[in-house]
């Protein structure tokens, strides 16, 4: 039976009211979505399946749309380089002359640095593997600053990995799907990055606000910063490795210290994603998981303080050597002598017994 012929057929509800109810229901759904959102967290599961699906679909579409733009840019670069070759040549020559001085200085410093490192026995961090990717879409609004890069979980990228371009830090990965990853830029309002001022080692938190220049918050110390100071990542918290270039400090119109990002100076086409998870990754895992323990390099066990109590009479002995050169043999020579092959056996035994038990403590 059609609805119109039923008992409710004559019921007339004004469209304005039903529209208002629909509006309220839609608004409630939107509020629920907003309250449930956790996009800024480093948890993989916070990046829902819907977002992953949209990213996977958006990648080829945005990639196809971005391609003509990229080609146009390359064409413009070609034309520009053709017309401005002479001027560019002059500039490059001047730059090269300056760079030669810097090269000599860098070589001298490198040499000095190597010597210091060997003197101090300093162990530097091993290089971190990275994956190169192309940016296919870029959002620049005040409420979201993210990019879509065309490399994903198949390249080993994980949530939290830092992203750089050839000049400096760009942001970090907040969502990964197959073949695509979402990068939260340093300028996004949800972005917080521990940084330090290179000159003074003063720590701060780089806080995005949707504008082009993120703020430096929680800056500590007496006169910690000056105009033009280089800002690098501090590595605090273990999310980002230490020492990645971020930008230069400037004082904003509002009186706050802000950072002009180095990454903004170059094209935004290509990025490098550091496959950095945490500091545990920097340790030599292979050495840690070695099945054999290093050989015991202590002195003879018989001479150890654990096996033989120190002779109480030794304080009295020192005057004796002055009398005759031979007496010391009576008190001290007795200890090395019993060092027969018997106590020495634990050494090879320890080496052979460990393979079975080495895994237990780990």
């Amino acid at each position, binding site marked *: 039976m059609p609805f119109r012929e039923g008992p409710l057929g004559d019921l007339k509800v004004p469209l304005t009211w039903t*529209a208002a109810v629909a509006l309220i229901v839609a*608004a409630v759904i939107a509020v629920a979505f*907003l309250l449930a959102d956790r996009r800024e967290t480093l948890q993989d599961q916070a990046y829902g399946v819907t977002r992953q699906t949209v990213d996977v679909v958006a990648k080829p579409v945005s990639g196809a*749309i971005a391609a003509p733009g990229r080609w146009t840019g390359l064409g413009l670069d070609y034309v520009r380089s053709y017309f401005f070759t002479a001027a560019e040549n002059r500039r490059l020559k001047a730059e090269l002359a300056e760079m030669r001085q810097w090269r000599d200085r860098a070589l001298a410093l490198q040499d000095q640095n190597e010597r210091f490192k060997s003197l101090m026995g300093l162990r530097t961090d091993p290089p971190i593997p990275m994956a190169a990717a192309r940016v296919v*879409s*870029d*959002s620049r609004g005040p409420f979201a600053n993210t990019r879509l890069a065309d490399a994903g979980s198949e390249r080993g990228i994980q949530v939290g990995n830092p992203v750089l371009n050839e000049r400096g830090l760009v942001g970090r990965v907040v969502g990964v799907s197959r073949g695509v990853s979402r990068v939260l830029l340093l300028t996004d309002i949800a972005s917080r990055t521990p940084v330090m001022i290179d000159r003074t080692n003063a720590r701060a938190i780089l806080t995005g606000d949707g*504008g082009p220049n993120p703020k430096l918050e929680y800056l500590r110390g007496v006169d910690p910063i000056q105009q033009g100071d280089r800002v690098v990542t501090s590595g605090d918290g273990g999310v980002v490795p230490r020492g990645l270039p971020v930008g230069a400090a400037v004082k904003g119109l509002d009186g706050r210290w802000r950072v002009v990002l180095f990454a903004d100076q170059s094209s935004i086409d290509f990025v490098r994603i550091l496959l950095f998870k945490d500091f545990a990754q920097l340790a030599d895992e292979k050495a840690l998981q070695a099945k054999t323990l290093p050989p015991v390099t202590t002195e003879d066990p018989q001479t150890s303080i654990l096996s033989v109590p120190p002779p109480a009479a030794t304080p009295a002995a020192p005057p004796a050597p002055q009398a005759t050169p031979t007496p010391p043999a009576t008190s001290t020579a007795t200890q090395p002598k019993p060092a027969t092959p018997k106590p020495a056996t634990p050494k090879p035994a320890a080496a052979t017994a460990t393979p079975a038990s080495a895994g237990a403590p780990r």
Partner: protein
Amino acid sequence: MSMSGARPLNPGRWLGVPMLLCMLATVLFAAPIRIWGLQLPEPVFAMVPAFAWAMIRPSILAPFALLLLGLFLDIFWGGPTGLWGLSLLVAYAMVLILRNAMTGQSRPMMWAWFAGVTGVAMAAGFLFTMLDSLAMPSLLAVFWQFLVTALLFPFAHRLVDRFEDADVRFR
């Protein structure tokens, strides 16, 4: 007089097509292009239907279409889910309430209304972002997006013109 004017409007035409066009324009303007160091602007194309749909007629489907559009914006731009859905619904509600005052006004006046409604949506977005992220977005960045979005009024005007008289019951 034929009764064709009394037929309900096909939702696919006045809701579906503008929605798809908005999505397409958003994807298009998200291209990572930089010319002379300048990037493309990022207008909120969804403001066009948010304004026009409420002007054309009150509807049950329009708020949900707007919610879908807002969710798409949030997910595609990587923002907090629900932010643009809610902001667009605030703008839609405002137009729906002031609909009687707005209809029949001159084009410049309507443009001013559109800019005002866009301002309300941006202010709502600003407020919700503050509550969600516990941080204040850059006012300058908000202003730029407001400016480029307010320039989209001709599209909204065209959409209103196209469907305003399509159903005689809502004249």
